[in-house]
């Protein structure tokens, strides 16, 4: 029996379980659809609660976990309002499908979008159980209270466990949304308490929980040797020789299917299938060994001459021409630059392409049989994946089943389901379940890279040290009005609205490389450029860099609706900056020679983050980051402080790695191959990271991303304070700097 209450925007569904339990799901109705947009999933449940007759509470997590901790933190929200003890809760992964609504992992959205609905799920279940108890005892609902999975009636000293009440509760009408009371936050027992990851034990004992650990009966192992140049084709290959190798069962060419459109946002809907050679064997090692004997002649196609150095030269050229587009203009920047007494500063910034390089390389297990595809994947975007497979294999969506498995890191990479398409295609071709595992080289050379770009900045300071003009010519990649996927620039980015004379222009050049979202997409480059150039201006103004920033944020933002730097509230940011300055002893501490502090802030994903880095630079340009202070305002509550701190520290380490990474192209091919030439920060290079949260009366926002962007400029600003040398090109190794 299932009941729903259709009169609300989001509604619950209550189901009685065989054996006397109850199951409760939360759905939200489909939003009205824009006529030209693809159909959205009609229902968006955030979670399910099951209470068995023996009192066991199971909460199903619908969002993929690739290390950001939602498998723990989202069920915590439900358990809080349900009023059960965390130790009595069991977490399971839900399936994937339209009926589960949005299951994306990306954009630091899990906490803000689930905060309200999940508390309502918990509170609704609790209300049902309370009603069931009140009816059983024939007492008013108001006299009943709950604690630790039991309903109590104080006056008569009676109590019943949730399990005993579940069956009756399942037969009751759903509580009215307006009648629900959510807990007073001061009574929280789970939200706000550090809670360890639910899979920690499996992780530390080496249990096979990751995508790469999948094993199915009769499963074959595959490698896929792809065209090194986007859109390339196989001219010839020694397939027969490879086929004869030990353990090898199938070797064949997969003809690429071009993506529906090159720019932008094509990737979520259809990641395309690049041309390559699949080698399928009875073990992965046999497949990979055979691959080493493969000799392929490629037809590289239109992108075969692409070269990073040429792109840099082209950007330089474009920067000198009138920009192709004006993205925003206020006041008169040219007049301000020409104003008498104005101090004009110019800076040309360049940030490179970088790879995600998740610790677990891309992998997917698929079984295509009788027109149906079953998939085991750590995808961050399971539903677009499901649609992509249905489209690629020309089968109905109901015939695609995706099982979510733990992912060894995501950072945006697993939003792209290319490996899923490949695995399903190969499984169909060989008629067996197949596990496709990429090598690290495949992973680094076939990414959806963080897009590179160039920014040519010019700013002016008046004789009082006030910032009066800012012009930014963004030179990126794209075609016409379209930027490469996640490779654009937002004209409302800070300091838009805070500077009276302000202009942002853009120009683009073509690119034959897939680009995509990398943790804190766009912000991870924009913050570096803007907060570095702000520092240049502070120094030109002869002002303390923190003071200069605070003064800028004191201004009343210009009134246009999108003016306030992507919706940023300057007061919240000022508080974060003031606290981080205090925590780090900004301007208060005597630092040894060769050591200095650098500061930066950035608003993204709803989070207000300010950071200070203490950095020592040796004579040989070896950089040691001694300590980092982070202050973040991400709203009223930190659901899981342990997970939150881990995410913030990880973001800082991740951002430090980005100071030394780059992907370059030669003859259309990615040059870098593995961790030795696309390095990651190591233990000895990782500083202690002090993390503080500032509570504010706002809906909690996510923490997977916003703490990353400020660390890059904070470190570069500190390096400038020590050396007087401004890092305007990343990786910083280009200017001779490296981590000690």
């Amino acid at each position, binding site marked *: 029996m299932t009941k729903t209450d259709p009169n609300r925007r989001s509604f619950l569904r209550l189901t009685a379980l065989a054996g006397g339990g109850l199951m409760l799901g939360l759905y939200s109705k489909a939003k009205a659809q824009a006529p030209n947009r693809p159909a959205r999933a009609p229902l968006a449940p955030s979670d399910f609660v099951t209470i068995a007759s023996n009192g066991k509470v199971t909460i199903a997590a619908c969002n993929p976990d690739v290390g950001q901790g939602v498998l723990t933190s989202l069920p915590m929200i439900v358990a809080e309002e349900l009023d059960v003890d965390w130790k009595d809760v069991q977490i399971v992964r839900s399936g994937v499908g339209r009926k589960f609504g949005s299951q994306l992992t990306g954009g630091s959205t899990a906490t803000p979008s689930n905060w309200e609905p999940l508390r309502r799920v918990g509170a609704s279940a609790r209300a049902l159980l309370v009603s069931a108890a009140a009816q059983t005892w024939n007492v008013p609902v108001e006299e009943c209270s709950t604690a630790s999975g039991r309903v109590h009636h104080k006056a008569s000293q009676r109590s019943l466990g949730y399990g005993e009440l579940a069956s009756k509760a399942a037969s009751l009408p759903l509580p009215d949304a307006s009648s629900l009371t959510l807990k007073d936050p001061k009574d929280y027992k789970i939200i706000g308490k550090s809670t360890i990851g639910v899979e920690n034990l499996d992780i530390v004992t080496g249990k096979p929980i990751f995508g790469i650990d999948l094993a199915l009966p009769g499963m074959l192992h595959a490698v896929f040797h792809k065209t090194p140049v986007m859109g390339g084709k196989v001219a010839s290959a020694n397939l027969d020789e490879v086929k004869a190798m030990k353990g090898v069962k199938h070797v064949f060419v997969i003809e690429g299917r071009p993506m529906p459109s090159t720019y932008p946002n094509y990737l979520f809907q259809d990641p395309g299938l690049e041309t390559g050679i699949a080698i399928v064997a009875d073990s992965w090692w046999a497949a990979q060994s055979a691959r080493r004997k493969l000799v392929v002649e490629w037809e590289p196609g239109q992108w075969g001459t692409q070269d990073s150095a040429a792109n840099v030269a082209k950007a330089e050229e474009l920067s000198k021409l009138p920009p192709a587009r004006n993205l925003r203009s206020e006041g008169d920047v040219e007049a301000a630059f020409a104003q008498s007494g104005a101090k004009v500063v110019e800076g040309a910034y360049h940030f490179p392409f970088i790879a995600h390089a998740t610790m677990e390389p891309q992998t997917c297990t698929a079984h295509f049989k009788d027109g149906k595809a079953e998939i085991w994947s750590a995808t961050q975007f399971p539903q677009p994946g499901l649609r992509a497979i249905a489209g690629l294999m020309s089968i109905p969506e109901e015939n695609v089943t995706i099982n979510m498995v733990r992912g060894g890191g995501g*950072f945006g990479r697993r939003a792209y389901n290319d490996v899923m398409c490949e695995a399903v295609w190969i499984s169909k071709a060989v008629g067996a379940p197949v596990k496709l595992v990429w090598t690290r080289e495949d992973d680094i050379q076939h990414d959806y890279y963080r897009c590179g770009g160039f920014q040519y900045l010019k700013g002016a300071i008046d004789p009082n040290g006030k910032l009066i003009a800012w012009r930014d010519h963004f030179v990126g990649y794209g075609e016409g009005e379209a930027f490469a996927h996640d490779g654009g620039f937002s004209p409302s980015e800070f300091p838009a609205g805070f500077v009276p004379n302000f202009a942002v222009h853009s120009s683009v050049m073509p690119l034959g490389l897939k680009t995509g979202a990398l943790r804190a997409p766009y912000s991870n480059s924009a913050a570096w450029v803007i907060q570095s150039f702000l520092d240049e201006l502070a120094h030109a103004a002869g002002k303390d860099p923190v003071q200069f920033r605070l003064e800028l944020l004191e201004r009343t933002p210009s009134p246009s609706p999108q003016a306030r730097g992507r919706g940023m509230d300057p007061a919240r940011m000022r508080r974060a900056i003031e606290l981080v300055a205090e925590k780090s002893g900004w301007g208060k501490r005597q630092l040894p020679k060769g050591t200095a502090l650098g500061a930066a802030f950035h608003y993204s994903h709803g989070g207000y983050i300010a950071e200070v880095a203490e950095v020592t630079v040796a004579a040989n340009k070896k950089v040691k980051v001694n300590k980092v202070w982070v202050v973040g305002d991400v709203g009223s509550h930190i659901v899981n402080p342990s997970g939150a701190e881990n995410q913030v520290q990880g973001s800082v*380490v991740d951002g430090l790695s980005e100071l030394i990474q780059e992907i370059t192209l030669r003859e259309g091919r990615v040059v870098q191959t593995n961790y030795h030439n696309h390095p990651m920060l190591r233990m000895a290079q990782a500083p202690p990271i002090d993390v503080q949260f500032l509570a504010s009366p706002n809906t909690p926002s996510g923490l997977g991303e916003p703490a990353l962007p400020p660390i890059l400029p904070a470190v570069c600003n500190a390096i400038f304070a020590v050396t007087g040398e401004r890092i305007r090109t990343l990786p910083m190794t280009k200017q001779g700097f490296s981590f000690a």
Partner: protein
Amino acid sequence: MINLTINGKSHPFGGDPEMPLLWALRDELDLKGTKFGCGIGTCGACTVHVDGEPKRACVTKVSDAAEGSITTVEGISTDGSHPVQQAWIELDVPQCGYCQGGQIMSACSLLEKKPQPTDADIDSAMNGVLCRCGTYPRIRAAIHHAAKAMQASK
């Protein structure tokens, strides 16, 4: 036929003796706790012990490990009761968790040699094991935590 001694048990291995120990463990012997990260010895995700010494299983041939006694993360304890595993759980070290088997194996071998390691000891012993998620501050804390627990239980 090669005989591999893994976690105290003997396993006959009939495959290619040139196969890296990593793939023998994962795909032939179904011990999936040892992870593939880079395949060239730069990331440490595949760290195991051979005769107590940390070794990169991705660049160690089965034939080279045949003589030794091999320990994988599954051999540290299957129930998570080892003080290093305990410290990892309690301090909530993992994010994605993929690197943590290699981290734990490296930490165990460090603590074997230096029961009370300094930060500098930790830096040098752990520097070869990458964590893409950036859990280094917690790994450091967990090693100190485990060192204390091991000392106390002596």
